[in-house]
Every structure is written in C-alpha cells, then in structure tokens.
C-alpha cells in the first residue's frame, strides 16, 4: 500500500491577472522508503504540489480547489490545522532550497534543532540536545557538541544545508520532501549533500520526494521520476525507463537539453517557445505548441496520464494511441 497517495490535486492562485492554475490535476503515489523525483522547469508546479500537501500554500491568494492526499488514513488536504501541525516536522518534513535563508539568524543551531523534538515529542531540553548533537554527527559535522552552540552565520552553505537536513530528519519522519536542496550549493558540495541524504534515507527508511530541475541528480538519486509541465504530470516512470524510453516529447526534450561534454562545438539544445500562460485554461496538451509531434488531436482535449507499460505512464495522446511508439522522440524534437 502506498504511503502517500495524491489524487487529482488542483491548487489555484487567485491573482489580479486571473486564476493561475499552478497545480492542475496531479495524481501520484509514493511507497515506503521510495525516492521519487519530481522534475520540471520553473513554474511547472513541482514545489506547489508539495507545499499543498503540507498546507504551506499562502491562503489567500492560493486555494486548493480539489484533491485528496491520503497519508496513513488521513486526508492531508481536508484535515484540521492541528492535525496537520502534528504531521509537519514529525512525520513529513521538508528541506528548502536556500540554506542561507532557511535558518533563523537570531537563534543558535541548538535551539533550532531541538524545537521539533520539544514540540512533537515533548522531550526535555537536555534529552533533545543530546539527540540534536547525535543528528549533527550523523551528518558528518565534526565537533558537533561545540558547534551546536554557534549561530547560522558562522557556518558555510553546505554546513547549513547539513543542519537543515539534520533538523528535518531529527524526528525520524516517514517522508522527506527535498525542495531543490542542492540548487544553491556548488557542485562539489552538491554531491556530498546528495550522498548524505541517500545515506540517511537508507538508515532511517524514509521515503523521499525530491524536487529538482536537474536531470543528472534524478538519474543518480531517484528510483522513480515524475515529469511535470504547466501544473500537470506529463510522464511518470522508473528512472531507468524514463531515460531509456521516454514516452512524452517533453521528457525527451528535457533530456536532450542536458549539456553533454562530448558534444563540443555544437550549440546547446533548447526547447523552442515558452511555457504556457497558466492563467489560461488549456484545453489540450499544454506542451502541444512547442511539440514537434503535435497534431490537431493534441489540442482538442485534456489527456489523463495512462500507463503504457507497468509503472510507466504518459499523458501524450499520440503515444497512448501507439502512433509514436517507434519514433525516436528526442531526435525529431531536435529537428524542429
């Protein structure tokens, strides 16, 4: 049974410019201990999806229009604030993108680390401090018992991200949502942080939702990938499958946009056009205007995600009809 099951989540933002359909009918499920990557470009709704299930959407202007997010028999989208608060930081926790701004500059690390323990587990301060030191040591911070008394500005970015991870994992959550945890770090530190998350995940058996726009990270880190575009899921597949046999032209184009070292001298591939305006209610496939394979049928109606092979679903109607089954998607997209 799935640990977390999201069905038809729609989160809209009611702005002056109109209704922004940031998340428009997303369904996904996460099993125990699984690592799922959510990829997509900026504004594709990856973060909003995760913020929605934790009730972190600013309301107003945001509003969860429909959907269910079942977690251990509780619907996260309709439960009370108090119930949700008991889950946040205890059973589902989150790491943010920028470690520079996600720690309170006015509080010592120790005070921030023990907070979830004091609030959720009613631990004594001294007990919580011991646990906090342990959790820092587990993330490879040396001399943790001394350094725990420092303030955030006395740490480097990579160190702060370790502290954030320690804080998120301190109460042994079942799900860890990592919202681009390595985007603000330099490449060498990125690898360390990824390795640490992976290692802690193995030790604790935590399921991880990994939000990123870096396909390389997905390839090395996730078992399962969900590709989002314009607030919808366009493809979801086991990682290997997605890279070997993409079933949506968008995923294929994404892969092609990865800079490769051996293609020296060639211009970098970019997907032509712009992401659609989310205030418009898009009838057909949102990627159709940029897609090299689009035909009239693509613009006609909304297509639901459909499983083609086991665990591998696509929202491309032409693929679902078998019209593109034997076409090498990526190269044709490039031919545009």
């Amino acid at each position, binding site marked *: 049974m799935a640990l977390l099951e999201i069905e038809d989540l729609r989160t809209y933002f009611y702005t002056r410019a109109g209704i922004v359909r940031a998340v428009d009918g997303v369904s996904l499920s996460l099993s125990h201990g699984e690592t799922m990557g959510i990829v997509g470009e900026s504004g594709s709704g990856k973060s909003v999806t995760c913020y929605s299930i934790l009730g972190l959407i600013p309301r107003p202007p945001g509003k969860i229009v429909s959907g269910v997010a079942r977690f251990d028999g509780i619907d996260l989208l309709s439960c009370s604030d108090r119930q949700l608060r008991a889950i946040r930081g205890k059973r589902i926790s989150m790491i943010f993108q920028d470690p520079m*701004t996600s720690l309170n500059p*006015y509080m010592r690390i120790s005070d921030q680390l023990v907070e979830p323990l004091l609030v959720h587990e009613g631990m004594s301060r001294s007990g919580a401090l011991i646990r906090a030191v342990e959790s820092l040591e587990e993330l490879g911070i040396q001399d943790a018992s*001394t350094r725990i008394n420092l*303030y955030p500005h006395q740490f480097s970015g990579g160190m702060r991200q370790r502290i954030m991870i320690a*804080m998120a994992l301190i109460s042994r959550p079942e799900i860890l949502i990592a919202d681009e945890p390595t985007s603000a770090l330099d490449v060498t530190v990125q690898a360390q942080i990824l390795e640490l998350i992976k290692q802690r995940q193995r030790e604790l058996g935590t399921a991880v939702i990994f939000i990123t726009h870096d396909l390389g990270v997905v390839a090395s880190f996730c078992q399962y990938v969900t590709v989002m575009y314009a607030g919808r899921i366009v493809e979801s597949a086991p990682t290997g499958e997605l890279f070997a046999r993409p079933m949506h032209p968008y995923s294929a184009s994404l892969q092609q946009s990865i800079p490769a070292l051996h293609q020296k001298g060639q211009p970098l591939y970019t997907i032509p056009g712009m992401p659609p305006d989310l205030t418009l209610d898009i009838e057909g496939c949102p990627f159709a205007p940029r897609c090299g394979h689009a035909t009239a049928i693509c613009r006609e109606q909304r297509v639901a995600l459909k499983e083609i092979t086991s665990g591998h679903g696509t929202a491309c109607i032409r693929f679902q009809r078998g019209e593109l089954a034997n076409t090498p998607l990526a190269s044709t997209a490039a031919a545009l």
Partner: protein
Amino acid sequence: MRDSTRAAPFADPVPVQGESLERGSSLWRDAWLRLQKNRIALFGLWTFMLIAILCLGGPFFTSYSYESTEISLKASAPTERIVLRTEFRKVGEPRESYLALSSLEDEFLERSPAERRAIKERVQNGNEFREGNAAYRLSNQRHVFGTDPLGRDLLTRVLIGGRISLAVGFAATLVSIAIGVVWGAAAGFAGGKVDTVMMRFADILYALPFTVIVILLMVMFGRNFVLLFVAIGAVEWLNMSRIVRGQIIALKNQEFIEAAISLGLPAYRIMFRHLIPNVMGSIIIYTTLTVPNVMLLEAVLSFLGLGVQPPLSSWGVLIDEGSRTMETSPWLLFFPAVFFTLTLFSLNFLGDGLRDALDPKSSKD
C-alpha cells in the same frame, strides 16, 4: 564536553568559559556579553544608572523638601551665599526668629549702592552686621542648584522630578511596547482580514486627538497619576505596532519562517521565538526614541494641568518653568535640562549598543 586539543575551525561568538551543552543559551545572555565590549553603550548604561540612583536616593540626603517654600530665598542662584537674618524681640533675649535671604539687596533698598556693597562685603567676610533688633550673618545653608521663584530647593526638585519623569517614561514605554509589539506582531503574522481589522482599529485610535483621549480618561477616572501612564502608553503603542507589523510582514515570507511552519511549530512559538527576536533591534531603537517622547508628552500634559500637579514636579515641568525665567535665572532651565539631556543621551547610546548586541552577526570576532 569540549575537546580543547582539536583546533576548532570556527570561533565561538563570544568567549564563554565552561559553557556546557545543557546550559540554556539565551539571546539576552549573549547580548549582555557583547554589550560589555561596547564602551559607549556601557557609558550610557552607567550614566543612566547613576541618574536613576540619584533620583531615587538623592532626595533623602539634600536636607530640603521639594515642597517647602522660603519666600525670601526666591530664585537664588546656585551656591549663592545665604544670609540669615536673626530678629530679636528684645536685645539679648533668647527667643529668636530666623529668615534666610538670598541677598541683602531687598533689605537695604533705601540705602545708597556703596553702603549696600559695604554691608554685603562685611557679612560675606563672616562678620555679623547688626541693625535695630536684627542681626545679619552668613548662614551655613547652601542650595547647590539654587532655588526656584518660590524659594524651593532646585536640587531636590530636579531629583524628585526625575523620579516622576523616569517612572512615567519607563512605565508608559513598557505599556506601549507590550501592547504595540503583541498587537503589531499578531496583525502582521495573521495577515489578511485580521490584519486589516486590527490595523484599522489602530488607525481610528490614531485619528483621535491625544488630548481629547486624556481628558476623557481623566473625566471618567478622575485625576490620577497612574492614568498618566495608561494615557501615554495608549497613544504611543500605535506607532510601535505599525513598526512591528511592517517588520513582521517582511520577515514572515522568509524561508526560515516557512521552515519553522514546515516543522509543525505552533503559531505562538513561531511568533515569540522566531519572529519577535528578529525585530528586537527595531523595537529597542524605537523604545529609546519613545522614552524621551513620552517624557515630553508628560510635560505637555502637565503644562495643560492634566499631568503632574504642583508642588510635585517633573523634568518636563521644570524645564518649562525654567524657560520662562531664562533671562533672569538661567540655572532654573540649565539643571533640569542637563539631567534630561544626559538621560536621553545615555538611553540612546544604550539603545544603539543593545541593538548591535542583540544581533548575533554583529560580533566582531
């Protein structure tokens, strides 16, 4: 706990000796350690303490009462020698009546200036001067700050006035901070309709003329010293709440607040542990600006007859009175003004220092 042999790559923010893991590490204790390194702030702190102690204890030692008047000593200058006029019923009889004079001028108006000077000199040199059944000699009384037009000792009055001013200044400021910070933080943190309603309420209060509020309060509850605190506090918190609200709104969209929410912390904890410490710098700066403001407001109220009633006094009242006799007796303005300014200066220095001390990033090592 601490491994001293290993070189710590990060310096401790403050040299805290023997700090154990168990010890609570409060913002305030750190701030105090940092404040001790700031000389100007320390100067402000000690000056302020000195003034406060003087005002509290001083009146017991001046040997004058703040309210007893001595009509013949009106407006005597500081350290002016005082002449004692002793009057005898009959020469040689022990029943005497005394009168202290700030100068002999008024007593010998009918004489020529040269004669007056001669008599004055004689008395000043320690000799006695007799005329009729009165004897004039130098008194051993002194008024260090001189006396006011009613012959009251200015030193005692400045110190007693200081008590009132400091009490009003601090009590009213505390009232305004307590209300203003909680109100502003709650409005800013809640946002949306709650924010609108709370801030419109503040706007309505703001629009009411201050003196009208005070007069209404006085009419309802009678003239009362405590009411002064309430009245001033009730007006000053409006500014504070606006400042705090603005800061909280700027802060609450920062990632660390989102992180705190995502950790499942309850709203009150986020407000009091995460948000308010972050705006402490602004609060303290604004507090140091509020204290003098409040003291001046108190003077205004007293001037209108709504505040401190004579013979009781405050610095504001003394300065106001002194400014009216500035040409003839400048010390009446000078001394209360010196105390007032010194207090405000020291509070500002202290406030500046506290703001720096409360910011963990400001430590220079």
